[in-house]
């Protein structure tokens, strides 16, 4: 009979006392970042106020806390390349944008990077690209770094390509690249060699023009 009474009175919601220690984790460290003022950003970058506003609105919508961490970034980038695996390339891209090397991209970093890429001079763009390829930031691009980057790019293509990826296509690509870029054949590409070689490449200069109007 005790059990019957017990069941009849069972309307309470009970929380285990042992779970209270989870409470402490609920006091989340709310990472919240506010960007510098609009005027300051306008001065530092090559964007107009309106463009900054638009960029910020989009950024804030996706990341209300004001920062993008690597996981989120990889996820976003992967959405554009559903065929293959974009995570490795996204990792290198993230490092290129995260100039402060603190594991997260703030709005300022984002906007500076975009300003260089879209509104910068040719030299600035090439420098940015060199910065992207130079994984360990030692001022030289060696074959291993380049191979990693190229492999990451080919990973984004996925498995189903025409013609099929046979043999070590990335390696061939890297060899061709070094043929062109490494002027003094010392096995590494410096910034100057890189800029020089790119400026000599007609196709590449023309392609760069096309990216002016992305925004």
């Amino acid at each position, binding site marked *: *009979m*005790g*059990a019957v009474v*017990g069941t009849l*009175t*069972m*309307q309470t919601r*009970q*929380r285990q006392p042992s779970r209270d220690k989870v*409470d402490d984790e*609920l006091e989340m460290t709310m990472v*919240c970042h*506010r*960007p510098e*003022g*609009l005027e300051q950003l306008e001065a530092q970058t090559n964007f107009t106020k*309106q463009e*900054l506003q*638009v960029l910020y*609105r*989009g*950024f*804030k*919508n*996706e990341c*209300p*806390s004001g920062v993008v961490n690597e996981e*989120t970034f990889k*996820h*976003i980038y992967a959405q*554009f*390349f559903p065929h293959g695996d974009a995570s490795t390339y996204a990792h290198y*891209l993230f490092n290129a944008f995260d100039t402060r090397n603190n594991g997260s991209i703030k709005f300022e970093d*984002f906007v500076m*990077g*975009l300003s260089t*890429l*879209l509104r910068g001079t040719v030299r600035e763009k*090439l420098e940015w*690209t060199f910065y*992207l*390829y130079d994984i360990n930031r030692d001022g030289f691009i060696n074959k291993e770094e380049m191979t990693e980057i*190229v492999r990451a790019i080919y990973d984004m*293509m996925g*498995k*189903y*390509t*025409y*013609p099929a990826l046979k043999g070590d*296509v990335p390696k061939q*690509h890297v060899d061709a690249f070094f043929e062109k*870029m490494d002027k003094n054949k010392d096995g590494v590409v410096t910034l100057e060699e*890189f800029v020089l070689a*790119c400026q000599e490449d007609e*196709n*590449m200069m*023309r*392609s*760069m023009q096309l*990216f002016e109007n992305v925004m």
Partner: protein
Amino acid sequence: MAAGVATWLPFARAAAVGWLPLAKKIMPKPPVDKKSRNDEILYVNVSGLRFQTWKNTLDRYPDTLLGSSEKEFFYNEDTQEYFFDRDPEMFRHILNFYRTGKLHYPRQECVQAFDEELAFYGIVPDIIGDCCMEEYRDRKKENQERLAEDTEAEMGTDTPLPPNSTHRERLWRAFENPHTSTMALVFYYVTGFFIAVSVIANVVETVPCRPLKGSKKDLPCGEKYSLAFFCMDTACVLIFTFEYLMRLFAAPSRCKFMRSVMSVIDVVAIMPYYIGLVMPENEDVSGAFVTLRVFRVFRIFKFSRHSQGLRILGYTLKSCASELGFLLFSLTMAIIIFATVMFYAEKGTKGTNFTSIPASFWYTIVTMTTLGYGDMVPNTIAGKIFGSICSLSGVLVIALPVPVIVSNFSRIYHQNQRADKMRAQQKVRLARIRLAKKGTTNAFLQYKDEGGFHDRDSDNALCLKNKSSFEHQHHHLLHCLEKTTNHEFTDELTFSEMCMTESMGYRTSRSTSISSQQGMSTSCCPRRAKRRAIRLANSTVSVSRGSVQELDTLQVHKSSSGLQSRSSLNARTEDLKLNCEDRDFTAAIISIPTPPANTPDESLPPSPAFPGILRNSRTNFYTHETVKISSL
């Protein structure tokens, strides 16, 4: 593709500058964006609801979005107002915070949505007033627990095995998840059957049978048919031993396995038999041996592997250990108190049963649990009074912890139900994601077919008009990647066909003319081709119907410039929210409808007679094929 990701597209395209040094060819021309960026400005207020407040009110909290200069980013100069594309209902509460200084949590809202709004406006949840804090925290904890369980269940044991797993891993898996293979299922049922047989044999052994001829005494069946029972017992024990040894062999961590409850039960269930074999027929020891036979009843606990309810019960008891402990403790206290009182109350009576306090324990327990056997009754008035108090308090003491245990059981039970439901839905969800991905791929390939990369003239412009600028730009980005790597995107079907034809030495003609394709399709399997053509026609119809529907949804999504639907990139619940985002995913013109009635039952292997399921018919065929893949 989630419309919210549209805001990141310019960024991804800008980052494509990083590919330029590697590309051997020149990049394709980007699409001309006719709309200037400036008309992203929207003329509506917090999604339509206009709020008015003093500036001072907002300035009260300078470390939030509305109180700081961050709101200048949202200022709309044309309409001279700040525009926020957020939930107007929630905004009401946020604004009230500025007005009154206390943040309230609306009970009817989802705690996660509320959290997101707070994060957006830069308000720390700690400010929630005392009146609503409890509710908020409870809901939040519940949500987090649920998320944790869901992620656990996802990574659970139903994932298919890696292809190169050893026999040991496969065996362990067969034991843990019997429904994965038929052998495991058979073994599962066989062991269950033998457990039942063993338990029943144990029970029937003690039932009195008709005595042997020439004897008056009733014999328990166990002694009459001792050989039969012995054989049955042996068989069961053999099976159990075999099972235990197999599990021991397959267990990934043998020490951990040996310490687990189920393994202990297994050992206890079979030990008595072996001990009985070893033991000599000694009178002294056989007493202890008889006690050991009691342990055979533990075999019934082996059923807990077969019954989820039993496991839940056991888990509940384990998780309610503190409540059970409290129950026990309070009962013990009450028993001692009342036993003492009853003893002293009945001390004087002649021939009383209450000979000592421990003897009164029995009376107290029987009374408190409202059993009332009646073998011990108080005779004095004082004894009767205290006896009644004892029974009344017994009801109370027992009724207190029981609801706690019951609610725990119900919670754990529902969790289990949910886990099973999730597993079933998971499969459907994964299939849908796969289809959506194929949809995006196919959209790009179709775009290429329609010559989207050549300069558009007025004729082609019509059929391409339906695509949004987002799609144009996304396809341009993919095209740049193709040019960088000097390879083109294809899909699984063509790829596998290419592999097959290459291995067979055919020279595939990758011409895109329709006429040659139709000629080829009647080559070696005319009947199949005809059936296929019919199906193509049918699926085209369904595609066009579906595509119209998809176009409508596409327009709806795109008209709000992609800022409305959140792609929840930050939230960890992106998997759960996938259901509502599925419509965004199938932005492709090809929508994958649910398998139409004309889906074939037989599977069509890609035959080399159709080397170029050639481009123009590819789209329809893909719908066809992808529908089949989903039904496989």
